[in-house]
């Protein structure tokens, strides 16, 4: 059990980057971008193929990010210049990317098991400076007997997710970022302040898919393979992370919301891990579970709100009827003394 939870924490941190990308398109740009299912794989495919061909894994990951950016820009172009409906441009790009991803990999699956990846490099570096032993000795003194293979992945990936979060927070406060947010919030207004909304949509979708591809590249290296089907349902997982995060941690402002999205991504992985431990559920049920989680995260807060509203009303009604009863009592008493 602890190993499974630890694994889900690691995976959650990796998928957090993808969730941040989805947050950018879905919440900031108000654009339901389905490109994600394709660009996630593109990131994995580009990184995997480059690593297998002997490129440096860090460089390969950078190229993967750039490819994701281009993919997102194409979706934006279809939508803004081609005047294609937002959902449809995403779907078109997603399906086009499926073939492109197959072309990049040359087959449906590329193994990275014997390759040097970002993950192995970081783990080796970590072990080299003896950090695992240090952490382990601290933890065992608290009395936790659990020993993971390495702490490197979890710590580096959480740090990375937060580094990206802070970068995003900062960017969304710059003049460019403000224009991007306003593009998603009120297009008429922002156009009247000389903002080229087409440019910002294209750029924003590029940025979003760059993050998604980044996540895909890291997930492929973490899992030890890149597969053409690994992006199926990714948009829903991203949405699940965003919605769960917002529901649990709140989204009062951008800084809070981006943190919530990272939390949501990790929480989502934990929920899935727990769900899969239920006896009659199989791995194939994952997507069904994901869908159920999203539905719950969407419906439950509303039900709870309505329940609270009802309670408040009932309370107010009681207070009012009590007050009026007292008032009448006083009047009655006053009338009696008059007699």
């Amino acid at each position, binding site marked *: 059990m602890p190993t499974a939870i630890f694994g889900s924490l690691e995976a959650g941190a990796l998928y957090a980057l993808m969730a941040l990308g989805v947050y950018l398109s879905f919440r900031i740009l108000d654009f339901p971008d389905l490109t994600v299912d394709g660009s996630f794989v593109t990131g994995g495919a580009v990184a995997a193929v480059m690593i297998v061909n002997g490129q440096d894994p860090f460089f390969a990951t950078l190229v993967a990010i750039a490819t994701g950016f281009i993919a997102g820009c194409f979706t934006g172009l279809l939508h803004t210049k081609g005047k294609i409906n937002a959902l449809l441009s995403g779907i078109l790009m997603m399906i086009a990317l499926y073939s492109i991803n197959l072309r990049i990999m040359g087959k449906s699956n590329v193994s990275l098991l014997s390759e040097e990846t970002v993950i192995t490099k970081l783990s080796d570096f970590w072990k080299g400076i003896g950090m695992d032993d240090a952490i382990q000795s601290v933890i065992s003194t608290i009395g936790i007997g659990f020993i993971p293979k390495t702490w490197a992945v979890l710590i580096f990936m959480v740090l990375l997710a937060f580094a990206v979060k802070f970068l995003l927070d900062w960017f969304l406060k710059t*003049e460019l*970022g403000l*224009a991007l*947010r*306003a593009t998603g919030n009120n297009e008429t207004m922002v*156009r009247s*302040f000389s903002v*080229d909304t087409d440019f910002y949509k294209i750029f924003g979708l590029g940025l979003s898919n760059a993050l998604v591809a980044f996540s895909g590249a890291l997930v492929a290296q973490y899992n030890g393979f890149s597969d053409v089907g690994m992006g199926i349902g990714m948009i829903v997982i991203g949405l699940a992370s965003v919605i769960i995060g917002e529901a649990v941690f709140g989204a009062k402002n951008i800084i809070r919301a981006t943190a919530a999205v990272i939390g949501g991504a990790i929480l989502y992985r934990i929920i899935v891990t727990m769900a899969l431990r239920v006896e009659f559920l199989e791995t194939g049920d994952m997507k069904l579970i994901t869908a159920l989680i999203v539905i719950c995260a969407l419906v439950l807060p509303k039900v709870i709100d309505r329940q609270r509203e009802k309670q408040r009303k009932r309370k107010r009604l009681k207070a009012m009827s009590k007050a009026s009863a007292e008032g009448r009592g006083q009047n009655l008493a006053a009338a009696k003394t008059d007699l």
Partner: protein
Amino acid sequence: MLREGGKTLLQLKQIYKVFNEGTPDEKVAINQINLNLEKGDFVTVIGSNGAGKSTVMSVISGKLNPDLGTVNIDGKNVTDMAEHKRSAYVGRVFQDPMAGTAPEMTIEENLAIAYSRMKRRGFSLGVNRKRRDFFKEKLETLHLGLENRLQAKVGLLSGGERQALSLLMATFTEPKILLLDEHTAALDPSRAELVTELTKEIVQRYGLTTLMVTHNMQQALELGNRLIMMDQGQIIFEADPKAKQALTVDKLLEEFQSIRGEKMNSDRAMLI
């Protein structure tokens, strides 16, 4: 005002615009309109529904392209310039109080977007201390206490407050042309009065060249130095600064009747 010797800031030449051309719904929205605004001119535009007032505004702002004719701003032909580029010169306040501001963003962030109108947006922070002080100073001129709520989301403001903020955002960068499209029509009377007062104040302070569409004849007479009346896509009556001072609502209605030979049928135009 600055009429004599003033330079022409806005020039509409032979503007013609048809909607749904070649269909049974074909409608000539603007029929050969010529209009010149000199620096500091404040022109109010009245007319019944469908007279083409809003279409003229859209043609000036670049939201619509005219079928024929040219639009010049400060001597530059902007007829084919994209809307977002043109908005570097043209400030706009819309009828809908929700249209001019971004509800999910704070007051200061909204102001920052307006502040960057004329410049290239870059990686510097949208709101820094210096700008915040500047925004505060500008907000104080609205007398609504918004200067103390810089970090409040604009969606929390009332319609009147949002419209006042929109007006400030459209004007404090001193655009060459200010377009007001019935910007008080959706507000309740007291709020409308407030925004009208603010409009008067702001336009005077910056000496903005302004075109204001209104359904309210009283407002059209009260504000501005010139007045034009539109009907069926044409300018049917024009009052220069001298003539406008002598105008009354009754005279305007008479004028309309004598030109068109029919009673002004729009009920909204009768809202005096």
